[in-house]
């Protein structure tokens, strides 16, 4: 134990590893775009990426641009415990954003005090580069 934590504790920033399934999402994010899989048969967007449409079972899909705006569907304020990588920003928010094209996306609203977050709040995606592979999608309030 070190600092009250077990040796196995993840200390670094956990990040996604782009691979064949998710690469188009992260490539788009690097360009400042939101792209999700869209079914070629029923036309519905889906997230997370997967090879078959959960609504109509079609295997036909493409990665399509999705609107950047959405609204807060639900949220929490994390007050700890959390992973060491996130401790410096405690308390912080995590939100589920319902995007205008119908996709739910878990993210964070930047520059928003915890007490001001509410359901239905309008937000817009912003792009936060972390390293050369990964750009995280965050959100900001819009009026």
């Amino acid at each position, binding site marked *: *134990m070190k600092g009250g*934590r*077990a040796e*196995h*504790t*993840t200390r*670094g*920033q*956990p*990040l*996604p*590893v782009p*691979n064949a399934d*998710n690469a188009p999402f992260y490539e788009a994010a690097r360009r400042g775009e939101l792209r999700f899989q869209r079914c070629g048969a029923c036309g519905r967007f*889906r*997230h*997370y990426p997967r090879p078959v449409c*959960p609504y109509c079972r079609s295997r036909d899909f493409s990665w399509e641009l999705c609107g950047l705006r959405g609204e807060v*569907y*639900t*949220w*929490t*304020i*994390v*007050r*700890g*415990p*959390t*992973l060491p990588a*996130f401790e410096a*920003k405690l308390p*912080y928010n*995590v939100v*589920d954003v*319902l995007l205008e094209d*119908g*996709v*739910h*996306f*878990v*993210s*964070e609203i930047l520059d928003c005090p*915890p007490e001001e977050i509410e*359901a239905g709040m309008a937000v817009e995606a912003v792009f936060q580069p972390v390293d050369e592979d*990964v750009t*995280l999608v965050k959100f900001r309030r819009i009026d």
Partner: protein
Amino acid sequence: MSGPSRIGPGIRDKAAVAGIGQTRFAKSLGLSEPEMAVEAIWNACDDAGISPGEIDGLVRYDLEETDEEQLMALLGNPSLGFFAGTPFGGGGSASVLVVAAAAITSGMARHIVVYRSRARGKTSSFGSGKNQGGRYWEKVGTKLSGLNQWHVPQGLVSAFQEMAMISQRHRIEYGTTDDQYADVAIAFRGHAIRNPNAVMRTPMTREDHHASRMISDPLRLFDCNIETDGAVAMIVTSVERARDLKQPPAVIHAGAMAAGSHHIRLSTLFSRDPDEESAPRVARQLFERADCRPADIQAAFFYDFFTSLVIIALEQYGFAPRGEGGPFVEDGGLAWPRGRLICNTNGGQLSEAFIHGFNNTVEAVRQIRGTSTAQVEGCELAFVAGGNTDPTGAVILKADR
């Protein structure tokens, strides 16, 4: 119509819980998971009146780290003819009985042990497995290629934070309140005070609940299950065989399992029709297969990892209309002896111990036997559900009268 439905009575009244056993429960016991597992299994065998050598089947939680190989060696290598696991942690807590009953019904085994052993107190250091010792979510690593890549890098690292978001949505839609959360916590603490095995036995007031620190809004410390060490085991056999053993049988009247949503994937959970989540699917199947309705249940055991999820479970399993779980728990709605639905009479996972739901299941057996420390008079039907956001399952236990 999608999904299994009207597929017959299945396991109805074929198998029974004939023995229950457990270790002591504590914040830290200083025992390894295999050692606790064996102690609980021995106790369950003693309770049933069979020898551990008569065990010929085993059903465990998938994530149980004390596996068949270790366990059989520790039990003196009985001849195992059937073994299986149910996935998804607490979601599988009632499902282990469904699987065991299916194996008994089909003649695959005669005496099946089901168990869960868990060294998870904060100071427990036994084992380096992902699900052993301390907080599983602290071991996530920095390179995520699984589905957790979609939420852990955003700071949503643990189940309690995910459940906080589900709970918040329920408040947004139905106006569920802190006071209603407190009603659940206080009712279960009241049960724990009567139960000498319970870890948390200090009386709790509404003020105590509201003063406990916020962990992840809207969940406070006293809305969360406790973390403990301990193990629980049961012996499942045929109803006929159970009648020859030491204890009155707790007949497995009906059981159901369902998958179709997963709490960690909030993005997909919220994309579904709420009636298509796992728990409502289980409820439909369970009560179709049973000869009773929710209103007939005399003692209910919900997977109380969080107060808010008990309120949601009441709705999902048909004990309260959707959106009315909050009012249902008010004014001692879940409390022994006069609640609307008496629940988690051991104190549950909020106050007795957190053995991934299995401590609630043994308490349901005690209710059927009439030996609970918060006994429902003449209890003949008890309901037990697994975690209601995972793929999940539920059973109805019935007295053999």
